[in-house]
């Protein structure tokens, strides 16, 4: 019994500093999505781009240690109607045959009182530009308070597609594209 208590105490001691380490997460691709909205005349085009891979590291004690890298599969991008999907994936916008992925890699995370700002580099058509995304991190439904094993990260922001050379159909489709990204992640154990 005495030995068992010692072992438990040792585990508790070791686990203390371990809990302060950044937590690493795996993407749940089926429940994650990258949505976008752009104007089309007086209407709006909506669509999604599938997430190919994501590396997420969250440090709840030191936000600066958090890190997000998301790779999107541009070839799977879909807009709300087929005409727009072809235009978007074609050479004048995403040029997916030449640039099959889009990537976002964070550089810093500034935490405010009610939200956080994630700054990073977005690469579209091989052109990398800095972007700022508003970030919100939630526990997923069904988890207990303090349980950080299953999280949802929501990122919102806008990009100007012309800055990436995606200038096609400028007479029909607006330059500003709103992003609404929801990433559901599961903590990597062990």
């Amino acid at each position, binding site marked *: 019994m005495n030995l068992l208590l010692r072992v438990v105490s040792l585990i508790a001691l070791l686990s203390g500093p371990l809990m302060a380490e950044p937590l690493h997460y795996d993407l749940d691709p089926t429940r994650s999505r990258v949505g976008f909205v752009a104007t*089309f*005349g*007086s*209407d709006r085009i909506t669509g999604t781009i599938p997430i190919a891979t994501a590396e997420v590291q969250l440090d709840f004690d030191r936000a600066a240690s958090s890190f997000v890298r998301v790779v999107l599969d541009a070839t799977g991008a879909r807009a709300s*109607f*087929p*005409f727009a999907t*072809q*235009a978007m994936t*074609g*050479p*004048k916008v995403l040029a997916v045959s030449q640039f099959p992925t889009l990537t976002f890699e964070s550089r810093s995370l500034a935490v405010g009182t009610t939200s956080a700002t994630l700054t990073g580099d977005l690469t579209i058509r091989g052109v990398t530009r800095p972007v700022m995304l508003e970030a919100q991190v939630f526990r997923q439904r069904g988890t207990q308070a303090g349980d950080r094993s299953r999280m949802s990260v929501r990122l919102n922001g806008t990009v100007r597609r012309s800055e990436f050379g995606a200038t096609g159909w400028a*007479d*029909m*489709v607006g330059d500003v594209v709103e992003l609404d990204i929801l990433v559901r992640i599961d903590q990597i154990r062990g």
Partner: protein
Amino acid sequence: MAAYNNDAGFGWVTRGLHWLMALALIAMLVFGTYLAGMEPALDRLWMYGAHKTVGFTLLVLSMLRIGWHAWSPPPGPIPDLAVWQLRLSRAVQRSFYALMLALPLSGWVASSATGIDTVLFNRWVLPPIAPVSEQWESVGFIVHGALGKLLALLVIVHVVGAFWHRNGTLRRMLFGHRKL
């Protein structure tokens, strides 16, 4: 009412094709001009498909018409025209046929170059006839627009010519023969 053309006049096939295509071409010239300046909207997307569908149908009808006239040659011009009028009439007629082929083909080239499917009747996808390229697209649409304006000019010359000569040319195309 004969289907075939003869020396005296046009059969109903030629006349039917003439009037059907005349109406469709004029409508397409107006429609195309409207499309070029139209504010884009989701509920107007069908118009692009309609323009391509009618344009391709006109291309097929043009080829049928050329084939039909090879099979059943139309009568020559009414022989009371001055030489210059005869030459102008022939030039306009030949230009019409060239444009009836070139106009839809240039639209098909330009559409193919955009990388977006050319869909007919909201169902069938035409194969592309040009590489996906901004240069091809840009030149294709410039040519398409210019040919459309040229066709509009020819329509005016043709209609003015038909009404100017009260020699039975218009009657022959309406009823088949110069005199009832």
